[in-house]
């Protein structure tokens, strides 16, 4: 078994993924079958956000990855220019 921070981080990731999965499943799959007067609807945003939030998060991820790649490429270019 891994030790120390590795275990904590790993189990933390598992917990986060389970929480997100359960909440999202309840939101998308279960809520339409529950009577609209039920109190549980108070804990969930309007349904349009169920697609908008993951879409926005995905775009942010792509943006971040693109920026990171640009940064690394520029750093490499500058390093080779210095050597020349």
């Amino acid at each position, binding site marked *: 078994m891994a030790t120390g921070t590795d275990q904590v981080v790993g189990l933390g990731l598992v917990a986060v993924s*389970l929480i997100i999965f359960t909440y999202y499943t309840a939101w998308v799959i279960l809520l339409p079958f529950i009577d609209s007067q039920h109190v549980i609807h108070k804990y969930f945003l309007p349904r349009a956000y169920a697609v908008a939030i993951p879409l926005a998060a995905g775009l942010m991820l792509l943006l971040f990855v693109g920026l990171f790649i640009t940064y690394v490429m520029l750093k490499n270019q500058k390093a080779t220019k210095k050597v020349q």
Partner: protein
Amino acid sequence: MTKLAQWLWGLALLGSTWAALTTGALGLELPSSCREVLWPLPAYLLVSAGCYALGTVGYRVATFHDCEDAARELQSQIREARADLARRGMRF
């Protein structure tokens, strides 16, 4: 057929089924709760795939078999090697 072609074929099939059902092009009268579940389905599958990936990575990080003794031995060997090479004149 290559794997990529297979995946694209499967995705195209599922995508067209979903599009046909959500736009009502097949003329089926689905109950409104089923339609409510159907239209976010691609986003839902993507999010659950992401959650599965994240959970698997986290689980394997947590259950990785560390060998602490071997790690310490390796670190001391690395230090020995660096000292030896530095003595022989190599600069790091």
